[in-house]
């Protein structure tokens, strides 16, 4: 199988009775995802998107054997929803919500160190194993089955790169949007490790952006541990210091950390070619797989 999600994944959607939750639960099911339940406090006993709704995630797990949660809950309540997911022995929780207070995520981050549940996100488009299942809001139709693993801090940039790949017949094993917030669950290194160990992934695209040092750390990890060929892309080369580019995490600090140059050169040093454009990334992958 590919990584993290496949057609055996049993999904509970937290916030399934909200507009977005319902719409994307339906979209996920349409794509073939095995959505088995929703969880919304006070709505237990109802149905939404054709699946039963429970008051707690715990019940959804007990009654429907859910093993994965996708979270569409407004930011003020999303931290609590993630804690609920983490305390329910799920394998995976995917938090789509954008705008969760950073301090809520710092607490979530602490709890992550105490649990076996993996978190993807928040503020991410989710993940997809083409032809099997998608968790989140990614537009399924641009993806194709294949052997390219993709990990990205950005949503629509992922779509752009995937589009370039798919157009050339370069399908994907799994694509993971890890999210653009300063504090996230699964990071580049976690995703790279998964892809490296996945027999169906033969090449990896890693889309980073300015801010933080995750890309530099990922480069060091690739150098040490990853044999699968990796092509990179870094958004924000032209961003001036001190200005946040949309994502809470995407900022070059006044003291010069988090620059695109630093990330690109770290990746290059690790043997990772970095494309100037999404097209060039597809070029590199095509070469790897030729």
């Amino acid at each position: 199988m590919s990584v993290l999600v496949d057609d055996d994944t049993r999904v509970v959607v937290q916030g399934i009775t909200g507009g977005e939750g319902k719409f994307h639960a339906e979209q996920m099911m349409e794509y073939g995802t095995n959505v088995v339940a929703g969880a919304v406090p006070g709505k237990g006993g109802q149905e939404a998107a054709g699946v039963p709704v429970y008051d707690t995630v715990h019940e959804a797990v007990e009654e429907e054997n859910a093993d994965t949660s996708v979270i569409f809950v407004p930011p003020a309540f999303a931290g609590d929803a993630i804690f609920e997911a983490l305390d329910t022995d799920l394998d995976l929780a995917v938090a789509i919500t954008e705008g969760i207070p950073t301090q809520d995520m710092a607490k979530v981050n602490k709890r992550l160190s105490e649990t076996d549940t993996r978190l993807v996100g928040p503020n991410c488009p989710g993940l997809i194993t083409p032809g099997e299942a998608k968790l989140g809001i990614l537009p399924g139709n641009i993806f194709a089955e294949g052997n390219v693993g993709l990990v990205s801090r950005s949503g629509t940039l992922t779509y752009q790169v995937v589009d370039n790949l798919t157009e050339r017949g370069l399908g994907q094993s799994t694509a993971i949007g890890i999210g653009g917030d300063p504090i996230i669950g699964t990071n580049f290194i976690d995703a790279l490790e998964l892809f490296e160990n996945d027999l169906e992934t033969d090449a990896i695209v890693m889309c980073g952006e300015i801010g933080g040092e995750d890309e530099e750390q990922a480069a060091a990890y690739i150098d040490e541990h990853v044999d699968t060929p990796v092509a990179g892309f870094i958004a924000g080369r032209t961003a001036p210091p001190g200005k946040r580019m949309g994502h809470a995490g995407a900022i070059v600090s006044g003291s010069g950390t988090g620059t695109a140059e630093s990330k690109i050169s770290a990746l290059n040093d690790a043997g990772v070619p970095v494309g100037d454009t999404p097209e060039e990334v597809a070029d590199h992958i095509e070469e790897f797989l030729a």
Partner: protein
Amino acid sequence: MDMRLHEYQAKEVFADAGIPTPASQLASDVDGVVDAADEIGYPVAVKAQVHVGGRGKAGGIKLVENSEEAREAADSILGMDLKGYHVDQVLVEEAVDFTNELYVGITMDRGEGKPVAMVSTKGGVNIEEVAEEDPDAIAREHIDPSFGMHPYQARKAVYDAGVDRAVARDVSSILKTLYDLWESKDGSDVEINPLMITDDDEVIAADAVMNVDEDALFRHPDLEEMEEEAAGGDELERKADEYDFDYVRLSGNVGIIGNGAGLVMTTLDLVDHYGGEPANFLDVGGGAKAERIANALDMVFSDENVDAVVFNIFGGITRGDEVARGINEALEAFDEIPKPVVVRLAGTNWEEGMEILNEDLVTVEQTLEDAVERTVEYAEEVNEQ
């Protein structure tokens, strides 16, 4: 995004929490400054209340010894343009005689995913420079956000930094208060620089920084009020606040609109790649409806530096038909399109969007690269005219 309090607002918050601050008054006209200074007693500092680093060097802070000097200082500071910000208010503040200046601050260490408390005896200067040139001069203590700061951690940071034992207890207690504020107010950066030590070992917050996580403002109505007071800066950035866009103004002439931070950044990078200069970063976010799209065009048209606009949407939750409707709406309001607009639509409902889009008003391209290249050409043409 961070909400930044003005110095006087942050000092109010600090003082309420029990941190000693100098006597001060806010003033917005020259007579008010002189009255305040007379009342406080000389010497006083007159400090511009704008969100600009290095106010002192830029002439935004003046130390005055008498009413006449106070009047002169007020005259020169009030109304001045400080690195692009108009000074409407000054803080008139007791000038504190100090023997030492410390730095204390709390911020989020994103690499660790947890807050970090910092203390340095090299206060009064740009702490980022200290961090680079002499990292050991800053004592750091990471805090487990589930427990909050234990008192011993405040002490440890203070003793590790080499703070004089005579004031260590007071500084520890201020650091702990600072953390509690950071936590209870959803701070992102909370700092005192300098924290002044007087010759009788009093400890006084001579400056105050309090930046707050905008995503958490919903639970801080008191801070939301301050935000309104604190608003200011570039007119376009204020407009972006109203429209609730992620917007950053840049110095070039190619206007950029897109959905998703990474994709918009990439569009900026491509503008550069094709020899153009981005005029802005504008992310309409996910799931934008027609009205929001029209607002985005209005934003970019309002920037007189912009000579051409690239509109790049890759639909996920954003739908191509809504985008097209918004573009039509915005452009059909003009007798003449003010600046050429290049549109590239992909992803969800892009075909529907293309059918709706009034192609008489815009130039359509199929790929991101082509769209950007075309826009850069347009911008050059307009510029050459």
